[in-house]
C-alpha cells in the first residue's frame, strides 16, 4: 500500500493540474481514488508507464513468469491474458500491451494469501508484445509474449 501511495503522490505531482484541482475542491474526493495511479495509466510509452509505476525501467527478465495469451488474437477487443509468477513475496503483477496508446492495462496488488496468478481480458490496438511485470521482494521482474492481432476476424 505504501508503494501505491507513493506512486500516486509522484503521479499527482507530475500532473500538478490534478493536484491543484483537488486542492481547490473542484473534484470530489470520490472521483479521485487515492490508490489509482492515474499518471501510470495515462503514460504514453512502456518506459514511461514503468518508471511512473515502479520508479525504474530496469526490470530483470525472468523465466519464472509465465504469460498465457493467444499467439493470434482474432479480436483485439478481447484478448485473454493469464500471468503466473513463481517468485516468493509477490507484491504486484502488472500487465502492459506495448503498442497501446496507454500501455498499462492493469496492475494487481496481491495480499499475503494471494498466489502469483491473475487472469483477465484486455484490449489491444494492434499486434504487439504483452508484457507482464512482477514486483516481488522489492525487485522488479518482467517477461513478454508476442500477440498478433488480426482485426476483421478471418484469422492469421
Amino acid at each position, binding site marked *: 500500500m505504501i508503494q501505491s501511495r507513493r506512486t500516486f503522490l509522484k503521479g499527482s505531482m507530475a500532473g500538478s493540474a490534478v493536484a491543484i484541482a483537488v486542492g481547490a475542491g473542484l473534484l470530489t474526493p470520490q472521483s479521485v481514488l487515492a490508490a489509482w495511479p492515474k499518471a501510470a495509466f495515462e503514460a504514453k510509452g512502456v518506459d514511461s508507464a514503468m518508471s511512473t509505476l515502479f520508479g525504474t525501467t530496469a526490470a530483470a527478465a525472468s523465466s519464472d513468469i509465465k504469460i498465457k495469451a493467444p499467439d493470434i488474437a482474432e479480436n483485439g477487443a478481447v484478448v485473454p491474458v493469464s500471468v503466473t509468477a513463481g517468485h516468493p513475496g509477490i507484491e504486484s503483477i502488472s500487465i502492459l500491451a506495448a503498442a497501446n496508446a496507454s500501455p498499462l*492495462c492493469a496492475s494487481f496488488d496481491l495480499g499475503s494469501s494471494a*498466489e502469483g496468478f491473475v487472469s483477465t481480458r484486455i484490449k489491444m490496438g494492434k499486434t504487439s508484445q504483452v508484457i507482464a511485470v512482477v514486483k516481488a521482494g522489492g525487485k522488479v521482474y518482467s517477461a513478454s509474449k508476442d500477440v498478433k492481432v488480426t482485426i476483421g476476424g478471418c484469422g492469421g
Partner: protein
Amino acid sequence: MSIKIRATAKQDSVTVKALMSHPMHTGLQKNKKTGEKIPAHFIQEVNCEHNGNNVLTALWGPAISKNPYLSFKFKGGNKGDTIKISWVDNKGESASEEAQIR
C-alpha cells in the same frame, strides 16, 4: 451492473473467477450514429476480500475488455467461506457482491 462470482476450493488453494458487467468505454470510441465521442467510463479499482481480509486489489485502466473477467487464486480458504468482490469506476459508481466458496 452485477458481478457473477464462482469460487472453488481445491486442496489448500481457492480459485476465484468473477465476471462483471460494465461497458468499459475508453473515451476514444465514437457513437456511429452521431459521431460524438463516448465519454470514458471504466472500472478503476476492484477489491477482493476473503472473510473480510483483502486478498487482491486490481487497478484497471480502460484497456480492460468490456464486461471484465477476473480470476485469481489464494491460499487458506475453506468451503463455505465468504468471498466479497466490489468495484468502483471513474464516475464513482460501484457494485459489490458476495459468494460462498464451493
